[in-house]
């Protein structure tokens, strides 16, 4: 093979091939070293590298196949890190949904900007949409999987709409001292769209009992769904509703399993608007 060039004239001849990545390793190393010392050659190299960048774009334009998008997004997201926490399957219950786990992670952060929260939800919706596309594209996926993914996406979408509502108010709920001191709750409440509710550190449910969320207006409290905490005491609820009355408080009580039309049990979490 040819000797490694050392003469400036010889090295200059290599700049073109260097810009195109067409040198042998030895020649490549030689010219790199030279460019660190010679400003004139470095300028020429930079100019010709700009041409090489142009060559990358000078190919005929060719649209990628439409199904490539879902494939690329799913493949990359599978391989790497995303904000959506991977779910740890609880010992006694079915694998928690990714949406719920993710909403729980958000609730346990002490102070969280609404904008960031909404952005995280957008991202989660995007992730779920990708998963959904992937599932739809795979003919052998169980119909149940597709339904689950669709349901998760629907819930996430609903949650996002509630949080994005113009009349949305955020309410922090405090655990009531005698029964649930360490528990906390956060509600995103919109009269026009509904409630996104998350709670942490709720005491373990006694048998035959369930937590129930209430929106309390001037009149009778209105049920906004049930909460069943996981082993860590975390629970989430997303309930859509329209034309709800103005609320003065949001509360969580302990009720018989299945819930009740009006609150009867102890208050565990309370927050006022």
């Amino acid at each position: 093979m040819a000797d490694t060039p050392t003469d400036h004239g010889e090295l200059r001849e290599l700049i073109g091939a260097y810009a195109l990545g067409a040198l042998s390793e030895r020649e490549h190393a030689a010219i790199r070293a030279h460019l660190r010392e010679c400003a004139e050659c470095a300028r020429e190299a930079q100019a010709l590298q700009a041409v090489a960048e142009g060559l990358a774009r000078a190919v005929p334009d060719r649209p990628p196949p439409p199904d490539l998008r879902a494939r690329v997004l799913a493949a990359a997201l599978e391989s790497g890190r995303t904000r959506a926490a991977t779910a740890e399957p609880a010992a006694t219950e079915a694998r928690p949904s990714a949406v719920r786990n993710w909403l729980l992670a958000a609730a346990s952060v002490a102070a969280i900007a609404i904008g960031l929260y909404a952005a995280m939800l957008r991202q989660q919706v995007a992730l779920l949409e990708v998963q959904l596309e992937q599932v739809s594209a795979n003919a052998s996926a169980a119909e149940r999987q597709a339904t689950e993914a669709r349901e998760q996406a629907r819930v996430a979408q609903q949650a996002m709409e509630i949080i994005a509502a113009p009349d949305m108010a955020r309410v922090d709920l405090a655990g009531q001292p005698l029964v649930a001191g360490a528990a906390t709750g956060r509600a995103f409440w919109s009269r026009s769209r509904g409630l996104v509710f998350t709670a942490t550190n709720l005491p373990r449910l006694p048998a035959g009992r369930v937590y129930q969320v209430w929106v309390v207006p001037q009149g009778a409290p209105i049920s906004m769904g049930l909460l069943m905490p996981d082993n860590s005491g975390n629970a989430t609820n997303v309930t859509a509703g329209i034309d709800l009355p103005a609320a003065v408080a949001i509360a969580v009580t302990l009720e018989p399993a299945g819930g009740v039309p009006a609150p009867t049990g102890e208050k565990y979490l309370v927050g006022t608007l």
Partner: protein
Amino acid sequence: MSRSLNDAADIQHAREAADRTALARMADGDASAFAELYDRYARAVYSLAYGILTDQTEAEDVSQEVFSQAWRQAGRYEPRRAQVGAWLLMITRARAIDRLRARRASPGAIPSVDDTRIAELPDLQPNQERVAISAQQAARLREALAALPEPQRAAIELAYYSGLTQAEIAEALHEPVGTVKTKIRTGLHRLRAALEGA
């Protein structure tokens, strides 16, 4: 190249700022930023991969590898070294050439994915002002490439799109290596003039 303030340049700068923001968000784990990046650059990446490999399946595979690498390495991207688009296309070319050379070595062989492999294109000179190639410039370059004297065009295309070293080009064209070097250099300077609108 003078940088006069005008709408095209402002748009270019805005685009580059948006790209850098998307990468920063991707480094943070933001999946929607990743989708944005794909929508912006999939066409360019796929076109280059296809231009080199002339096979749809392989071009798709390479496109997927490129975006996966971008996702994993978003935190390592350095804005001053290259524009995001140029960076993606450098990775695209490197991976496509890898496949091409592997195909030649043993038909059907797929090279293993290796993120630490240095791209065959040289590192860009740091601390130099980089301005991204505009669509107009790319079109001018395409025309200029087609208009190059055949020997220069062949040498440049074999080097850039077929990944041959200049020694391999010399062998393929039955010419001395010195001739190949000169053709490449002369041809690139002509293309450079076209790029700069001279």
